[in-house]
């Protein structure tokens, strides 16, 4: 199980973190090239407008799992911090399961959207006429990546919940006995 978590987190770090980070850098370069082309070559490329939007979809959706892993999603901790530690940890586990369940409408929704776009051969309104299936597939990939990260989080949390009572009650002997 530990190996599985490790692999998922490596994938998340790379696809959801590093790659998206460098896409931001690419975005900056693309925007600057667009401005230069407009003023120096007097001919707008009109690429950045469209591709920039797609990059933003990617940074947000592919970055969801990575941001979760790094604790970057904002939540209200004030109230639960008043609860005893044990209840708090179980509640956290429950909210984690709810968040995982939310992957279902995300994945199903993205899949349905892709089907529609394929069926109607939807394209962007710009001169690129990009088939929308390509940028929209980012939603599906990102949601699946998120689900994988959630599975890793659940495994991690279950491990720590299982070890928790040992540390809390009688450290030392009991912990060994359980193993």
């Amino acid at each position, binding site marked *: 199980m530990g190996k599985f978590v490790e692999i998922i987190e490596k994938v998340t770090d790379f696809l959801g973190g*590093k790659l998206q980070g460098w896409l931001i850098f690419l975005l*900056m370069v693309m925007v600057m090239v667009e401005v230069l082309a407009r003023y120096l070559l007097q001919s707008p490329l009109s690429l950045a407008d469209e591709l920039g939007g797609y990059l933003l979809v990617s940074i947000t959706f592919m970055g969801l799992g990575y941001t979760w892993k790094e604790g970057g999603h*904002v939540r209200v901790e004030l109230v639960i911090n008043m609860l005893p530690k044990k209840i708090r940890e179980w509640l956290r586990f429950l909210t984690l399961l709810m968040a995982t369940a939310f992957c279902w409408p995300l994945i199903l929704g993205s899949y349905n959207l892709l089907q529609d776009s394929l069926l109607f051969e939807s394209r962007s309104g710009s001169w690129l006429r990009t088939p929308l299936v390509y940028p929209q597939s980012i939603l599906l990939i990102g949601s699946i990546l998120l689900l994988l990260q959630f599975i890793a989080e659940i495994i991690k949390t279950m491990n720590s919940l299982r070890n928790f009572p040992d540390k809390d009650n009688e450290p030392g002997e009991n912990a060994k006995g359980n193993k």
Partner: protein
Amino acid sequence: MLTSIIIALLLVGLLFLLLVSGLEIGWSVGIVAVTGLLWYVDQPVGQIAETCFGSLNSFTLTALPLFVFMGGILGNTGVNASLFNAIEKWVGSLPGGLACSVICGNAIFGAMCGSTIAATATFGKIAFPVMEEKKYSPKLALGSIASGTVLAPLIPPSILLILYGSWQGLSIVDLLAAGLIPGITLMFLFIITIIVQVKLDPSLAPETVKYPLNVRLRALLDVLPFAGVIFGVLGAIFGGFMTPTEAAGLGAFLSILLTLAYRKLTLAIISQSLLDTVKVTAFSLFIMAMSTLISHVFNSAGIIPMIQEFVIALPIGKYGIMILFFVMYFFMGMFFDSWSMLFLTFPFVMPVIIGLDINPIWWGIVYVMAGEQSTITPPFGLSLFVLRGVVPWHPMSTIVKGSLPFLIPIYINVLLLFLFPQIALWLPGILKGG
């Protein structure tokens, strides 16, 4: 009618329950939105993806990661230290001079990249040790550092205003221009607050020194590169040469050049700033997408028009309703940050504002202050927490006590905006005319 009310209450109740249980805000909003979508308005699940794609596929919004990245580069390299030193030569002779310098430094930093969090952390690291060494009271020192961050979202370019504008389909240039004068006014009000505090209790700050003219002039040279970045970014936006997104790209690029010139930039800093930007983008825009969905669901269910009618019919008048919102944000601000509050409340607040015929540009500026008061109000104030992380040896109560006096200038600034809306609306008008 009655069933809609019950369903609206149930959904809002569910949202409240999920938020309180500590589920991430984006997911709390999302689960409620999807519940409403599938169970009440009975629309296909594909709507989720369609809303996500539609609200995120926006070139205007790409200014967000670019400005956040720019703030990360400037903040993580610590080039602000030289900026702070230079400002101190000019403003340092005022009573509580270093605290005033922090305020001005925040204003200038805000004029570069409009990011609050980066500013708090860097000024905490740069300015606080100097202030402690010179025997400033920690209360005044930490209070000014925490509060100064309120300036960044007002002074253009402001990420908060870009989020608001692109989400609600308003002119970003108008919004950014509208924030300039209120931002500068607030800066002066903050400085007056510091001076009054020091005059009332001289033990808060030591006697200040006045620097000779040649030292001051040399300091001016140090500010030049920063001024270059500011004029580049703001000039490009207000001169009509670039869209705000392009100006954000230019700003990020200029920051890289600037920090390279100071020999502070490393690959590790770039990579760290990029990863931080991914986190900020993913967390905030996911909430935005989910809030767009909830807005769609509640509109389809006819709940939003109902709320709109109900609030507008309240017998407290236009200003009463706005004050009510302001008070609501004060209390919500104890639990949420200004970005999350924007996304959580605007699906409901915006229809009321439009229904009351209030200028949305002006309201955006009022919201910045309504929302940003949350960064310094306990128990959860973003600035307070970030600063606590930087100076863990000082208790939270010191930071809070130091910050609370700065709520007064924020309220005075809001009052000024109510009395003279032109403070915000004059500049956008001029830009349009010219």
